[in-house]
């Protein structure tokens, strides 16, 4: 079985978000980039499947050269090889089109339920649509028996058991697998694993980011004594007007 794991290269979850160049560009100063946390779940499940059967795992990232440390980390965690599509991942349709170009021939395409930068939550659905294969997200459990895939999918306020056949795209989330930390041997071998760089295919830009904005700063907190909870209820009614 051939598994493709699509990973995004995103700011660490503790990052402070800021923009430069008149709010048109993300400020990378002091920001550490990581494999998207959901994509990390996808990767972890792929490695488990590889260990349990004779699967191969390829990771794919659409990104410029600065994403290579993140790709190497995925290789250190256990992926066999990697593809980087050399382009700025500006919008979901563009990213999905690039992924679809390279995803043919894979039995299972795993992604995260959403990237934590643009949070679109759609690249998996778009790739499924472009390839004409099923896509399921967010998946909390995924098991394969031959070409049959059974999944537990989260829905609002509950979950669903879903069945489909390979080839398939799944957007993953916890608790599908435990995040894996690369070990020393993994880190050493990652340096020599193949990382192929390919140029993007031409896609019309149908969504254009004009500028960014930060939310307004939060006002100061009003502290209330634990002996006076009645005042809190009163303030929620009359001041905040939320009750």
């Amino acid at each position, binding site marked *: 079985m051939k598994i493709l794991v699509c990973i995004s290269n995103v700011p660490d979850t503790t990052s402070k978000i800021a923009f430069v160049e008149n709010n048109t560009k993300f400020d990378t100063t002091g920001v550490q980039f990581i494999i998207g946390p959901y994509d990390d779940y996808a990767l972890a499940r792929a490695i488990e499947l590889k260990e349990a059967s004779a699967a191969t795992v390829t990771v794919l990232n659409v990104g410029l050269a600065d994403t290579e440390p993140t790709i190497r980390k995925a290789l250190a965690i256990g992926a066999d090889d990697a593809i980087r599509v050399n382009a700025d991942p500006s919008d979901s349709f563009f990213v999905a089109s690039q992924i679809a170009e390279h995803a043919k021939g894979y039995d299972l395409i795993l992604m995260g339920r959403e990237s934590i930068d643009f949070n679109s939550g759609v690249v998996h659905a778009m790739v499924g649509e472009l390839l004409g294969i099923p896509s399921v997200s967010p998946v909390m459990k995924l098991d394969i028996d031959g070409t049959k895939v059974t999944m537990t999918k989260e829905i609002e306020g509950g979950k*669903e058991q879903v069945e489909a056949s390979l080839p398939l795209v799944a957007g993953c989330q*916890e608790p599908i697998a435990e995040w894996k930390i690369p070990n020393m041997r993994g880190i050493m071998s990652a340096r020599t694993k193949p990382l192929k760089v390919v140029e993007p295919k031409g896609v019309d830009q149908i969504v*254009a980011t004009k500028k960014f904005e930060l939310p307004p700063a939060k006002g100061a*907190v009003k502290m209330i004594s634990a002996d006076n909870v009645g005042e809190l209820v009163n303030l929620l009614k009359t001041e905040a007007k939320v009750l």
Partner: protein
Amino acid sequence: MNILVFVETSEGKARKTSLEAVAYAHKMGGTVTAIVLGAADANDLQNIGKYGATKVLHASDSKLNEPVLQAYSSVISKAMADEAADVLVLANSSLGTPLAAKVAIRNGASFASNVTELPDTSAGFVVKRSIYTGKAFAMVELKNAKKVIAIKKNAAELKEVAGAAQVANYAVTLNDADFNTKVLSSEKATGDILLPEAEIVVSGGRGMKGPEHWGILEELAKALHAATGCSKPVSDMGWRPHHEHVGQTGVKVAPQLYIAIGISGAIQHLAGVNSSKCIVVINKDADAPFFKAADYGIVGDAFDVLPKLTQAVLAAK
């Protein structure tokens, strides 16, 4: 402008966030047609008119009772063409967001999810969307003639406007290929208020000490008619079901009021609550980082404050 709105149902009832999508489309201006798939309550179908739809298409084929993404995409794509819709609007959800993306591809439309405000059409068609898990916004231009937008909760105020909808049956032809996934079974918390849609959320963290103490939190939630949530470690340890976990890697909520009890306020938790209108934090540690993100705070022991707060809420009713 013709706008099609997909109205999602839960047990035959129109979802509140979907009615917000109808209200959003109405505010955009133009002719609003809503579409409902699968079994639905007749009164509810009629009710959609109150929020500004003049027509409601009901595809009542029982094969659509289970939400199969591929089949839903086929029906909505066709409806978009049949109605000559320029824009499709729907509410972000585990079904709606991927559905919107697929329909956008089939109809050659520009697409944006997590949209938080009405489009700005002064120069092109620009929408504001939430990015970096609520830590920022992006203004994006949807360049194609056709557009698909998935809106975030609170993108439009749910307000009744005078109006009645004409409900029509929408006949569909479904192929086997449309059922490329099969729902085997589902488990749903019935009767409860859905966390992503709740106006008030009462959420507990590790400070609640154990699942056996959730009773006092649930009592407050009941008094407030609120949904219950939790932090990630709480669901990781199995104290609460996974779908209650709020934050970066869990549910993103946007209620009027979020009450956090015994939650420290890690940045990953805050990412899921920063769209709340008002945040109340109850924590025994005055230095808990959550207080910095709060509107109101109480330094105190949850086991002392919670029952008192429930009493005060009930007394104020």
